């Protein structure tokens, strides 16, 4: 029996076991929405397409499944662009469906026409413009495979309206051929042997673990590696939650706002074991003084990341879980009392710290959230100072419990991403830590929270300004503050009430103690506006052009 390509698309999504689609309809994608009418797939109606892309992203990060979002042609599609770029930078698997004008109108500047495959070429792993309706099932199958295999990433499928309406004989292909795409999962045995030898020879190894650990599900192997060879572990921002935050071998995050002891351990180490990380500029600081004494083993699924920024002694292309499983049997249990004593000394000398004076401190808010949730919450964040304080003061316990925009640094990511995470993890405590700047970039999604009945807990670290930029202007512009102070401040607790959720304002530690436990234990959604000390800086900080060992307190 023949069905329309739009119906075929929905059948394909069902075959891929898609549970939820985040989207917002429009003219060119009406046929697909019509086909969704009879499907059991849940559609979550957002209030702005950017929210759809971020929600699909948050869902994917929280669950490890492919996130799916949908929008119409033209402005619907361009509104997704920031969300797609965000997912691309952080290697998040997404399949994005966009409507397109009729094929006969493509290229004519038709109403709501935009070349979305052209626009998204540099920010997708791959994309397709469907011209032949018969090829749609194969394209969708390829899109899901490409998005979720190898180094994951977003794949966009652009579907012209007339193609969506054409009839085809539906058959979902069981196999697909992509001769130009064959990710390497198993590491080269010679290289793995070489890595084992370097580890045996090393006196002062450090493990530097990134988001690849989470993507490949290698947290258990990482822990085993660290405990077997007695090496401390530092996480990249994307790697946070892949190693227990309360483990004695944990050094916290490294880099620009990393702990000083992590940065100094990397500087002093004689072997750096990089796992699923990409030597980002925010991690390395000045390249010539990054891990200057170390030999470097780099394990990554993306060969293009190996040797891109830093010279590598032992490169291993492969899935980090599979490579570690091959490597672990070659290693012997080692104790390293001298090195671990030095690490302990660095931790004592340069702890993370902040002054408790001057009212409510944002770091205290995060510490309280950690204490009250015992590190069991899934924490979504936005971008800015609050995000760094979460990275420093919330000790994550299990993989995928931090949902945050790393590579692109997208303010406005937090709320929709938290929506996606909560929909993916219905029974779990999901909290959003955001700032007043970031929150105002996508707060329209409060309506989605209410419509979906999500018990999301929102904590705004409200410093009444764009705090991270203010900090940059303090450090680099001698305090000439330009365009960072908001002169108007909405009352977020009243805003929450306007949406029908509980709203609170806290100004000091006493009020935190009164409000937080109640909010966290409550069954419904709530928003807590935390009026924090506005001048607080994220500390430590590595200044531009400096080595990470030169971090300053600020």
């Amino acid at each position: 029996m023949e069905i329309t390509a739009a119906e075929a698309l929905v059948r394909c999504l069902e075959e891929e076991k898609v549970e939820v689609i985040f989207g917002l309809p429009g003219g060119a994608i009406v046929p697909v929405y019509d086909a969704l009418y009879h499907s059991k797939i849940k559609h979550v109606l957002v209030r702005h397409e950017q929210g759809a892309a971020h929600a699909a992203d948050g869902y994917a990060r929280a669950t490890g499944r492919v996130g799916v979002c949908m929008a119409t042609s033209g402005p619907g599609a361009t509104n997704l662009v920031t969300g797609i770029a965000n997912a691309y930078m952080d290697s998040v698997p997404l399949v994005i469906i966009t409507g397109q004008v009729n094929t006969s109108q493509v290229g004519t500047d038709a109403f709501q026409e935009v070349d979305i495959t052209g626009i998204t070429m540099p920010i997708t792993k791959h994309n397709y413009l469907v011209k032949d309706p018969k090829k749609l099932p194969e394209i969708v199958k390829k899109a899901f495979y490409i998005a979720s295999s190898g180094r994951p990433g977003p794949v966009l499928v652009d579907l012209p309206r007339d193609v969506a309406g054409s009839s085809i004989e539906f058959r979902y292909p069981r196999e697909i051929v992509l001769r130009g795409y064959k990710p390497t999962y198993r590491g080269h045995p010679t290289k793995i042997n070489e890595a084992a030898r370097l580890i045996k020879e090393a006196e002062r190894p450090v493990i530097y673990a990134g988001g690849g650990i989470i993507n490949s599900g290698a947290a258990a192997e990482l822990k085993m590696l660290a405990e077997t060879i007695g090496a401390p572990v530092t996480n990249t921002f994307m790697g946070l939650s892949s190693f227990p935050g309360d483990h004695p071998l944990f050094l916290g995050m490294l880099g620009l706002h990393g702990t000083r002891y992590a940065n100094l351990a990397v500087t002093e180490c004689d072997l750096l074991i990089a796992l699923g990380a990409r030597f980002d500029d925010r991690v390395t600081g000045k390249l010539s003084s990054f891990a200057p004494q170390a030999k470097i083993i780099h394990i990554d699924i993306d060969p293009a990341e190996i040797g891109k920024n830093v010279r590598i002694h032992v490169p291993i292309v492969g899935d980090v879980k599979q490579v570690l499983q091959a490597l672990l049997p070659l290693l012997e249990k080692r104790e390293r009392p001298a090195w671990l004593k030095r690490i302990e000394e660095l931790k004592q000398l340069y702890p993370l710290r902040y002054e408790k004076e001057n009212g409510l401190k944002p770091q205290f808010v995060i510490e309280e959230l950690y204490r009250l949730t015992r590190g069991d919450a899934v924490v979504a964040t936005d971008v800015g100072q609050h995000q760094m304080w979460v990275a420093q003061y919330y000790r994550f316990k299990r993989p995928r419990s931090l949902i945050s925009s790393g590579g692109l640094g997208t303010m406005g990511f937090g709320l929709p991403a938290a929506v996606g995470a909560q929909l993916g993890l219905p029974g779990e405590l999901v909290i959003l830590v955001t700032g007043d700047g970031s929150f105002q970039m996508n707060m329209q999604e409060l309506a989605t929270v209410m419509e979906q009945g999500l018990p999301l807990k929102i904590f705004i670290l409200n410093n009444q300004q764009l705090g991270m930029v203010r900090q940059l202007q303090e450090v680099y512009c001698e305090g000439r503050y330009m365009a960072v102070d908001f002169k108007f401040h909405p009352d977020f607790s009243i805003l929450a009430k306007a949406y029908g959720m509980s709203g609170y304002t806290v100004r000091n530690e006493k009020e935190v103690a009164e409000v937080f436990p109640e909010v966290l234990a409550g069954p419904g959604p709530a928003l807590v506006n935390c009026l924090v000390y506005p001048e607080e800086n994220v500390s430590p900080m590595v200044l531009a052009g400096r080595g990470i060992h030169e971090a300053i307190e600020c």
Partner: protein
Amino acid sequence: MRRTLAVLVENNPGVLARVAGLFSRRGFNIDSLAVGRTDNPAVSRMTIVVEGDDRTLEQVTKQLHKLIDVIKITDVTAEEYVDRELVLIKVSAEPGQRSEIAQIAEIFRARIVDLGRRTLTLECTGNEGKIRAFEESLRPYGIKELVRTGKIAMLRGSRYTGGNGKEEE
């Protein structure tokens, strides 16, 4: 250093834009680019001449490999290879100069392919050095128009990179 890459790609719409876009956004310089179908209509072959050090070339190759439509990349410069370019040159030629120009054409084994009242159009194939020398020889007469195809290249000997993407010894 200049390298010549033979890149087999799926003959899909947009594949040239993907490759060209990759070069521009990652700041790689293309010296020359020639594209055409292979004996397999589903596969095209690009010959890309790229300028850069070893590290740049490594990144170019790795980033190209990440494109789903790229099937295979061979650095032909790493081995013995044949490369050719074709040039068409329209040169000023007063009737009295024609035989002189015809002699130059003969030296370069070029051919006169068209004749105007005051011009000659010549076709020449060869490697870059020969094309350059040919151009320089004609320059004194006044080059009116010049078009070249960009370099195409192939490994010498019995090794080949087939349209199915398989390499054979």
